[in-house]
């Protein structure tokens, strides 16, 4: 007997006679793979519970009672276990399973999307019999049937491995596809009239080991050997999922999730997976437009830039630099945002910059709160959610939190005005009336006393008991665009005051909003999470002069513009008419601005009003870096060229500066990063070498040493000590995506193990990224040698001081520069005054976003555009009863701004006294009603009169 006190760190087994040290509890299939023996498999997936269903991985295992065939995906290693993966019995059994799988498989590989990257093809080649002995009629089903608008199912190809169904049930929590029938007639299908409308459905296509599940946007678009790919980071939201971006004939055709431990585990949401369609859209701008005789007409870059430079300079001359403003930037890469931040401060001379459009939280709150990572939240034990619906806005964060709740016992305490996608998983879900978040938070922190007094005290006390005394991570965002951020900020302040160790994970959603804030695209904030006030001296040394006073935020800018005080307005990939919560103010602001230049990939509602429109390159067309909700910086890669003469935002900034008589001093994305690394205090030490290292492939956390992460040292998870495996074992499955995938790669995985192949892939990606820089027009050398990069990264990872040291001699003043400015720190805001009481005839409006909305990318992605649910007013059934109308009835909704006719739907998730309305859905809606002058928006809901209101087309209710 082993000494029970002895800590067993390895389990000794033999694989094909070779001694192997496995990890205790490790599954045999995983231990073998780490040791370089690839056991074929179909149903096994490292991110899901094994089911032992396909039987492909059966091998002879001897645990002392003689060899027996066992599924290696189901049995943990045990001391002394002897495994034969190449014995005659094993080979015969595996041959047999492959033959069984193939007898009813249609072998229509030439017309199958998966052909060329198909695990069934590859493993048949590597492990299977040469030919089939099956002469009977194969099983027939109708060829692909739609499971949803995005995913189709070819049941003839399906090998019933349970991957998709397990994913839907266990990972996504959307058990909408399942096995139907039994035996030889088993099939995967949806329930009748209940489509596979999961936000994560595309993952099933990626993990399908055959071509049974097909993504409509990719079907018949390319063959794997036609694909080029780069590794990049999704910017559909700010979670920062790593993915492979694949193109064919210079068009994006597919995104595949890459398995990285700290972020997305290989998963993507369908928006991030399929919104590349927008990049390819016909409506993309390819040439500058200028307003002539009331019409926007195509002009040359030279003419357009000259016009912009002259008009902005003229406005500044006549009205002062404070009459200029820049709105937007959250869709840009970090380097673009930095260039524009520098341009605004040093060339335009204004601090009126805001990457957020009044729909987030104040920059000093986001930058100043102590930070948490996704992993930290998932391992926290207790997470407090004060956010919009995470499932709608940050879908893969939802998957991570869901997993933590389901499999790790994470306790979620949710404070929200309506039910959300996480409500069903929350240990406690507290409803607060918009504007009263801080009061509810204080009651919660006080143990549940002094609550709203409406019977919710018990719920509060229960929640307080669940909250406990342990460490807390708070996920913080803007729960509703119809209430001001004040009460949310006050709630965060109360939490931090009562529980000083609390760390925060931001739930701001727009692609690179965190990078834009880090780069200083917010009034009073300069690059590196420092304030204009504190860092003036530091930046003066490298930037020169800075604006004297703090500028206006988005609401302030639009208000000033409406009053004629903004004479030059730059819309930097921003569409205030679609995204600013108060459309009336946005409309008056844009109309009132003397001159408007829009830099955008599309003509939006706002850019149609501009005097000049400059076409911008967008996702997949430009390199650089992006920063996610954690402050994790990861790389973007260019894969295709932008349409026409569209170019990266930073280049537009450089050229505009040049026409205004200044030189931003940069000529490439790499120049920009080098400068960021030199001047942004939170980014010191995050050199390109670090970002391009193997450890940097998962992204690198920015921030001072006293924050959660230290640069260059990705948080350690189970695989962090194996650089490269997690980064490039794309999809975490049998396979590397795209053209990197070759027969040798698959076969080689068996012989050489994952890590070697991964390095090769990473190098390939790096090479592509360098090409990407050329695509940007920069004449840069490729990055330093790989070895040097890795060595430097390793050094940085081991030495925190190296990361947060003084500027590396980059400033103009050499070694005698100013001292490093302090990072912005959150200080608890004063107690919120509280919202006005709601009158008994009004409903308090709640407006959050759905995953699919009228946003620019979704609108231009044909596969996604129809998925926007529309803006119906969601009302508690009791309130509907009070109105005397049934669900599906049209009602008049009136706020201080306007009056709309909307369809009212009963929704039990909306508490009595409130009304839900999804933001930015096609047509009129929430933004028309919301009045940002007040802390909340109340609406009056009235019937349209007898017989006038009912709508039969939607919502039933007949």
């Amino acid at each position, binding site marked *: 007997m082993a000494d029970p006190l002895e800590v067993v760190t390895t389990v000794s087994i033999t694989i094909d006679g070779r001694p192997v040290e496995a990890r205790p509890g490790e599954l045999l299939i995983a231990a073998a793979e780490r040791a370089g023996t690839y056991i074929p498999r179909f149903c096994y997936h490292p991110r899901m519970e094994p089911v*032992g*269903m*396909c*039987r*492909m991985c*059966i091998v002879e295992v001897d645990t002392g009672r003689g060899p*027996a*065939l066992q*599924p290696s995906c*189901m*049995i943990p290693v045990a001391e002394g276990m002897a495994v034969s993966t190449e014995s005659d*019995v094993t080979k*015969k*059994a595996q*041959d*047999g*399973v492959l*033959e*069984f*799988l193939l*007898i*009813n498989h249609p072998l229509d590989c030439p017309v199958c999307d998966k052909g060329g990257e198909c695990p069934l093809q590859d493993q048949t080649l590597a492990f299977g019999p040469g030919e089939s*002995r*099956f002469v*009977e009629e194969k099983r027939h089903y109708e060829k692909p049937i739609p499971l949803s608008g995005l995913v189709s199912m070819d049941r003839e190809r399906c*090998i*019933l491995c349970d991957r998709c169904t397990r994913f839907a049930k266990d990972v996504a929590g959307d058990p909408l596809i399942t*096995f139907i*029938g*039994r*035996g*030889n*007639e*088993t099939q995967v299908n949806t329930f009748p009239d209940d489509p596979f409308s999961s936000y994560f459905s595309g993952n099933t296509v990626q993990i399908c080991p055959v071509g049974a599940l097909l993504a409509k946007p990719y079907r018949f678009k390319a063959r794997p050997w036609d694909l080029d790919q780069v590794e990049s980071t999704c910017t559909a939201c700010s979670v920062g999922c790593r993915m492979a971006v694949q193109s064919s004939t210079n068009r994006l055709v597919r995104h595949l999730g890459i398995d990285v431990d700290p972020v997305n585990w290989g998963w993507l949401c369908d928006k991030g997976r399929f919104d590349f369609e927008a990049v390819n859209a016909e409506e993309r701008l390819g040439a500058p437009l200028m307003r002539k005789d009331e019409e926007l007409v195509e002009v040359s870059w030279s003419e357009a830039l000259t016009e912009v430079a002259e008009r902005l300079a003229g406005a500044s001359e006549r009205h002062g630099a404070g009459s200029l403003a820049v709105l937007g930037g959250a869709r840009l890469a970090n380097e673009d945002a930095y260039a524009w931040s520098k341009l605004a401060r040093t060339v335009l001379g204004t601090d009126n910059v805001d990457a957020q459009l009044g729909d987030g939280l104040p920059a000093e709150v986001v930058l100043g709160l102590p930070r948490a990572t996704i992993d930290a939240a998932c391992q926290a034990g207790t997470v407090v959610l004060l956010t919009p619906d995470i499932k709608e806005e940050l879908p893969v964060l939802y998957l991570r939190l869901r997993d933590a709740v389901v499999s790790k016992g994470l306790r979620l305490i949710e404070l929200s005005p309506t039910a959300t996608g996480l409500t069903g998983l929350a240990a406690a879900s507290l409803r607060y009336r918009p504007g009263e978040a801080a009061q509810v938070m204080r009651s919660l922190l006080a143990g549940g006393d002094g609550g709203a007094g409406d019977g919710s005290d018990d719920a509060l006390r229960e929640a307080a008991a669940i909250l406990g005394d342990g460490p807390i991570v708070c996920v913080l965002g803007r729960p509703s665009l119809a209430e001001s951020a004040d009460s949310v900020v006050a709630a965060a302040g109360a939490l931090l005051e009562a529980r000083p160790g609390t760390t925060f994970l931001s739930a701001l959603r727009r692609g690179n909003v965190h990078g834009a804030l880090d780069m200083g695209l917010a009034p009073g904030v300069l690059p590196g999470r420092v304030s204009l006030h504190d860092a003036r001296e530091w930046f003066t040394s490298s930037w020169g002069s800075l604006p004297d006073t703090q500028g206006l935020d988005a609401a302030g800018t639009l208000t000033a513009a409406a009053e004629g005080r903004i004479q030059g307005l730059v819309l930097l990939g921003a569409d205030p008419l679609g995204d600013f919560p108060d459309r009336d103010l946005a409309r008056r602001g844009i109309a009132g601005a003397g001159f408007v230049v829009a830099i955008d990939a599309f003509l939006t509602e706002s850019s149609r009003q501009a005097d000049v429109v400059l076409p911008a390159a967008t996702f997949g067309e430009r390199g650089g870096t992006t920063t996610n909700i954690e402050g994790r910086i990861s790389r973007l890669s260019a894969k295709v060229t932008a349409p026409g003469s569209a170019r990266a935002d930073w280049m537009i900034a450089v050229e505009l500066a040049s026409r205004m008589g200044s030189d931003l001093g940069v000529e490439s994305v790499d120049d920009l990063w080098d400068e960021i690394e030199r001047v942004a205090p939170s980014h010191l030490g995050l050199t390109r070498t670090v970002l391009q290292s193997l450890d940097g492939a998962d992204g690198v956390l920015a921030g001072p040493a006293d924050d959660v992460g230290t640069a260059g040292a990705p948080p350690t998870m189970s695989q962090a000590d194996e650089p490269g495996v997690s980064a490039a074992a794309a999809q975490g499955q049998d396979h590397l995506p795209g053209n990197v995938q070759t027969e040798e790669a698959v076969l080689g995985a068996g012989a050489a193990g994952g890590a070697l192949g991964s390095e090769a892939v990473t190098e390939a990606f790096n090479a592509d990224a360098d090409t990407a820089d050329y695509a940007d027009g920069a004449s840069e050398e490729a990055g330093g040698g790989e070895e040097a990069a890795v060595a430097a990264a390793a050094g940085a990872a081991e030495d925190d001081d190296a990361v947060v040291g003084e500027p590396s001699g980059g400033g103009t003043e050499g070694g005698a520069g100013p001292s490093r400015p302090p990072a912005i720190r959150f200080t608890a805001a004063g107690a919120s005054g509280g919202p006005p009481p709601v009158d008994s005839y009004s409903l308090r409006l709640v407006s959050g976003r759905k995953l699919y909305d009228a946003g620019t990318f979704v609108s231009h992605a044909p596969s996604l555009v129809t998925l926007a649910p529309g803006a119906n007013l969601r009302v508690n059934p009791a309130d509907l009863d009070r109105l005397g109308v049934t669900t599906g009835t049209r009602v008049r909704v009136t706020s201080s701004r306007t009056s709309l006719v909307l369809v009212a739907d009963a929704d039990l998730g909306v508490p009595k006294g409130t009304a839900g309305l999804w933001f930015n859905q096609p047509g009129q809606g929430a933004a028309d009603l919301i009045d940002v002058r007040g802390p909340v928006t109340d609406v009056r809901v009235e019937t349209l009169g007898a017989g006038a209101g009912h709508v039969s087309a939607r919502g039933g209710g007949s």
Partner: protein
Amino acid sequence: MAVTDAPKIITTRFDVADGHTLAGYERTGGYAALRTALGRAPADVLAEVKAANIQGRGGAGFPAGVKWGFLPPDVHPRYLVVNGDESEPGTYKDRLLMERDPHQLIEGVLISSYAVEAKQAFIYVRGEMAHAQERLAAALNEAYAAGLVGRDIAGSGWSMDVVLHWGAGAYIVGEETALIESLEGRRGMPRLKPPFFPAAKGLYMQPTIVNNVETLANVPWIVSNGGAAFAALGTEESAGMRIFALSGHVRRPGVYEVEMGKTTFRDLIEAPIYGGGIRNGGTLKAFIPGGASAPWFYEEHLDLPLSKPSVDKAGSMLGSGAIVVMDHTTDAVKACARVVRFFAHESCGKCTPCREGTTWLHQILQRILAGDGRPSDLELLMDVCDNISPGIAWPPKQTTICPLGPSAVSPIASALVRFRSEFEAYIANGRHAAAVPVEVGARG
């Protein structure tokens, strides 16, 4: 060997007109054992059953008392689940027990639950058995009303509930882990053992005992008469009485309770009080000794005693106690195809070899029967069998999770070895060898 005069244990009320009612049951001594058991410590009752050395009557023949001992101590809640999903072709003994003596099963369940300290028991009855379901439900209602189930049973202080559950028609649910899946509301698909041994991780991931109907029906008698009395019946290796469902080409098909180990197949098939011999004075061609998944036996096996070790040793199993007799008129290829069709139809679809392989086997057999067989098909049949059950050995090895796939291999392996010429005749001539033409009226 001969017909023994051992006492009947569980079929005593089969001929009592109201034996299925509480009144009839109590009049004939019912529920006395429950009161006896409740007066003793659970561990004593468990020891009594262990002493009886009763082997499970569902098919695997594992000693029930030993199985109960596998429950981890002090882990609660724990459950007793009754496997009443009797679906193997030829097997219909449990159905009669549930139809004709439902209280006996309920009493057995109560005593057994008490012995293993399970506060809740589930009786899972095959979906097609409407009459058994009605009788069990009526009996359970009577028992609840009489205070024999529920709170404070018979004034003893012991409380427990019994839940009835009807299956939905899948044979595989007779496999205990698939039954548990089904009971939990999911598709009936087997779980892999390990880790899902029911005694450790069973229903709702709690310790669970799954017993066959017949096994539990014996428990009241064991408590009343003592485990030693039960163990004294039969032989040391096969204790007690057992009921067999006899069907096929015999004069008197039916369910018969016989003494284990002392009665032979010949007794059961030929004795006037049992099968009464082959119908129409015919001769025996083959018989299935223990349900459709068992390898076939022949003339030379008739004098084997009905005991687990002797049948195991001879290369088959007593299994579910279903004996199917085939006389000389039987077409071995058709009989084989018929049994394989059953398993192909009942494969749950989880494991590839069973899902694809059993159907393929049936397709090949159908093709042979249709006259389209090829000489290579016989080797192919055996090799497909080998890929489902490597080595085609007995007891079977398997590439699958549960034994359903290998079950389809048994009839092919049996028929193809013993009656190869019949297969070859189909392949050569497109029809049965017809050495013994079926006489008109032979089935009458």
